[in-house]
């Protein structure tokens, strides 16, 4: 299935090379931000608002300042003197660093204490007295536009109501016409819950400002160190922190998943504190603060599908209400306020679609971060996969058969979708066939028939999704104006060993291993001889970072092309040393030899050595190359997932009996690592499908803001995942790869939801919002009067 062109010793693409980074992680010698300890380092703690919406009448920090070891208390008024109390978000909205008069959500930063150690800072924090004037908060996004709703963002010029923006794509009139004339129209209202990435490491930083050199070194848990450096320069350039005076170091990161892309107020306060005090300042976020200060998803979607009676999809229409909290704190490309939501026509071939979204301000934490998802793809995929099942249910057709009949066929690629995308490649039929064979689909349906006769609850759910990743082509994709290319720099030392640096930043994806494999594939230098380094803006080439499954599509491509530049140089050196023309040489991984005379050859190591010791006149010495890769298109990974659930008829406990995930990410660099990504992503897809949601009461109190009640799945909830792949290379990507990190998180929730709804089909249930819990099933059945007797006989 996966063909390797290189030997195991070289360890190029397709080999399950064991990860290099693991030696330090299994011995406890990884280096995370909380492990940074600098001389004279101070510690910062943050006091946060208990209210969702309130005026700050006063902040009294005198008792805190009196505590031995407290160095400073910083408030919004202090930052205002330097014009640092507000900052831009990555979506060109604005966010408070610290408030001067109003707090906009529970948990918002109100003031910071800087002290000699963590405990002293915490003690002093408790002594700060803040007097609030509590106001009626806007929590329900559906009521945010009511006439009597307070205007939450009067600070924004021209803002007349609580709408942040409106977006739409597709042909509204044509779509309406199809819907008016269609035989079958189905519609469901869905909510994709407010969730959190909950990486096991929270956010944090050590801001180290050196007054003598006017230089800031920022150690921080960021997925995008270069972009962050630019943002810091934009925010603090006016106080003298210009970009050449800033070094961002992103050490080992304990999981990111998109949650470590934005600039959070804590980072900026720490920088300001270090700048004002002249000593290093450490800020490590508490878990509870982490869970309640940003979020992902929170899309209310009205999804509709129009089709024929015999199962031909004709059109879809989606209307989104996006609850962004008090500011748009997402990190989408500038031109795409809903991210890649417009991929929501899915894997199906039909000509007409319309989508629109309205973003709303409420008194909730800001965010909308792309949680393991290429900017809102998860929301889109959930909507299309759920409404496709709803349509199948309506016309009484098997959901697998319906999908087969509507899939874009493999000879239709490149496929132009009704929302304007050009899908690069795919073979959706092959993926679903493999998944159905692996799970024994027909047998399962037969079993389900028998079980239903006995009143037992068993469901089978499908999700056959298309992703859109690898942002992105510079003509359309930028963040704050910076084009979303990415970079690789390869430097091969005289002895044939190499170091390669990238603009991306691994948070567990295994870049130190997989990037080395790409270079090994192209140059024939063993991947074990190649050191990969990322995360230090002083040494790595500029790039936009790791999120949205973009590392392989962008920096991975840059690695391949930089390596090919070096191979071209090696060819010239070989021609010179072997005294033949370049055309007379042939390449096999690791050496050039003369055509027809294979005994005359030079290994890559010999050629590298020659580039330092014996290169021809006129050739530049050394063996280095850099490439900034601007992708011509996005890549479109796909997947066919099938989930089987059993629901206990007494307790409604849901058990995922089997889950088969077939992914197509094009060529795979390291099957072991790719599979690991899928396993983890599936558990992160299970999480919102069945367990996770941050719940707010009507006053804006987060009701489950700790890991005790925000239910991250353990090994017990998580089933034993079964994974496989089909390989449809991306035609435009240098190594035919598409990206794999996020597909499982994107594809799994609708497969699980569809399975659960399928199990409940005999009771007239057509849709349930995730997370689907036993309590929600109980309520649904109760609503239908089905709980008076045993559900098995209802």
């Amino acid at each position, binding site marked *: 299935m996966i063909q390797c062109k290189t030997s195991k010793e070289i360890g190029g693409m397709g080999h399950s090379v064991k990860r290099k980074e693991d030696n330090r*992680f299994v011995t406890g010698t*990884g280096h995370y931000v909380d492990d940074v300890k600098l001389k004279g380092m101070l510690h910062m703690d943050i006091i946060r608002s208990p209210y969702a919406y309130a005026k700050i009448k006063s902040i009294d920090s005198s008792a805190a300042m009196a505590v031995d070891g407290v160095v400073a208390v910083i408030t919004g008024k202090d930052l205002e003197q330097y014009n640092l109390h507000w900052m831009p978000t990555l979506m060109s909205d604005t966010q408070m660093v610290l408030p001067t008069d109003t707090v906009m959500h529970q948990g918002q930063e109100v003031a910071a204490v800087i002290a000699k150690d963590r405990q002293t800072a915490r003690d002093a924090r408790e002594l700060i007295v803040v007097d609030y004037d509590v106001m009626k908060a806007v929590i329900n996004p559906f009521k945010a536009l009511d006439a009597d709703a307070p205007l939450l963002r009067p600070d924004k010029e021209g803002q007349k109501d609580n709408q942040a923006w409106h977006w739409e794509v597709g042909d509204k009139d044509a779509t309406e016409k199809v819907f008016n004339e269609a035989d079958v129209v189905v519609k469901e209202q869905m909510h994709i819950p407010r969730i959190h990435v909950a990486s096991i*490491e929270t956010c944090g930083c050590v801001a180290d400002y050196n007054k003598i050199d006017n230089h800031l070194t920022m150690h921080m848990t960021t997925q995008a160190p270069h972009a962050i450096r630019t943002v810091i320069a934009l925010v603090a350039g006016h106080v003298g922190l210009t970009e050449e005076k800033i070094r961002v170091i992103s050490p080992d990161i304990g999981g990111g998943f998109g949650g470590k892309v934005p600039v959070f107020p804590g980072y900026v306060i720490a920088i300001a504190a270090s700048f004002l005090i002249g000593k290093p300042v450490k800020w490590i976020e508490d878990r509870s603060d982490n869970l309640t200060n940003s979020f992902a998803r929170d899309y209310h979607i009205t999804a509709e599908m129009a089709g024929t009676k015999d199962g031909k999809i004709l059109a879809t229409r989606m209307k989104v209400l996006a609850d962004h909290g008090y500011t748009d704190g997402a990190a989408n490309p500038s031109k795409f306020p809903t991210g890649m939501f417009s991929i929501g026509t899915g894997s199906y071939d039909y000509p007409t679609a319309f989508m629109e979204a309205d973003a709303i301000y409420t008194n909730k934490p800001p965010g909308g971060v792309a949680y393991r998802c290429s900017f809102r793809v998860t929301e889109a995929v959930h909507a299309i996969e759920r409404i496709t099942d709803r349509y199948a249910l309506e016309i009484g057709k098997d959901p697998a058969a319906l999908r087969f009949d509507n899939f874009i066929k493999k000879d239709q690629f490149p496929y132009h979708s009704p929302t304007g995308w050009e899908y690069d490649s795919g073979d959706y039929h092959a993926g679903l066939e493999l998944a159905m064979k692996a799970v024994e689909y027909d047998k399962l349906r037969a079993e389900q028939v028998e079980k239903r006769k006995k009143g037992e609850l068993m469901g089978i759910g499908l999700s056959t999704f298309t992703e859109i990743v690898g942002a992105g082509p510079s003509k359309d994709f930028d963040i704050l104006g910076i084009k979303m290319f990415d970079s690789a720099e390869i430097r091969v030392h005289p002895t044939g060993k190499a170091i390669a640096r990238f603009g991306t930043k691994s948070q567990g994806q295994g870049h130190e291993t997989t990037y080395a494999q790409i270079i090994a594939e192209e140059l024939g230098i063993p991947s074990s001889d190649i050191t990969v380094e990322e995360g230090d803006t002083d040494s790595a080439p500029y790039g936009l970072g790791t999120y949205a499954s973009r590392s392989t599509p962008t920096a991975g491509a840059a690695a391949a092309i930089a390596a090919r530049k070096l191979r071209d140089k090696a060819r010239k050196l070989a021609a010179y040393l072997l005294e033949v023309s370049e055309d007379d040489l042939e390449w096999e991984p690791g050496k050039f030899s003369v055509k027809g005379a294979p005994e005359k050859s030079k290994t890559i190591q010999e050629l590298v050595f020659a580039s330092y010791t014996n290169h021809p006149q006129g050739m530049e010495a050394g063996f280095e190359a850099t490439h900034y890769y601007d992708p011509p298109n996005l890549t479109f990974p796909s997947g066919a997932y099938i989930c089987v659930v059993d629901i206990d008829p007494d307790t409604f406990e849901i058990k995922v009996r089997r889950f088969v995930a077939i992914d197509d990410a094009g060529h795979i660099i390291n099957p072991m690592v790719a599979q690991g990504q899928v396993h983890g992503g599936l558990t992160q897809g299970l999480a919102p499908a069945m367990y996770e949601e941050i719940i707010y009461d009507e006053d804006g109190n987060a009701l489950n803001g700790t890991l005790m009640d925000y239910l991250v799945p353990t090994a*017990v909830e998580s089933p034993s995942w079964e994974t496989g792949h089909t390989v449809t290379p991306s035609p435009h990507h240098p190594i035919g790869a598409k990206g794999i990190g996020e597909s499982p998180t994107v594809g799994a929730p609708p497969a699980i939801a569809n399975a659960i709804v399928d199990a409940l089909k005999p009771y007239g249930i057509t849709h349930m919002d995730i997370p689907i819990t036993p309590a929600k099933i109980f309520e649904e059945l109760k609503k239908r009067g089905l709980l008076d007797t045993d559900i098995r006989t209802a």
Partner: protein
Amino acid sequence: MKKSITLKLNGEEHSAEVEPRTLLVHFIREQMDMTGTHIGCDTSSCGACTILIDGKSAKSCTILAVQANGKEITTVEGLATSEGVHPIQEGFKENHGLQCGFCTPGMMLRAVEMLEKNPNPTEEEIRWGISGNLCRCTGYNNIVKSIQYAGAKMRGEELPSTEPVFVE
């Protein structure tokens, strides 16, 4: 008012003055400068700080440093010996049982105690056994595999294949 404690940390005896309220995890990380033990939550839910106290796994955020007086503590830094890495470390590396590595030290120490008590656990026993330790990266499949591998190694049996298995 600081208290004096003496304990054995990874085989070495240490005496220290600690504030009575200091959590063991903070003592290990900040006073002993052993940063392999991680902190992932504030409710004793995540298990990233799991260590061994007299051979028994415990979340070191649930114990005060003073309570560890006279005890023998093992952290991730104490797993390897001059002979090489512990089978559990080898298991995690060989089976891709980790990704970001943040939960890994706690997960491994929990597994060590589990394997010492139950040398050949079933998959279900392993899953329940590590249910106090959260991992956000791996989906647990390969953690289970890593622990099974370590179990085989500790029992001196033939090692299971570490190749990834795919649906074909």
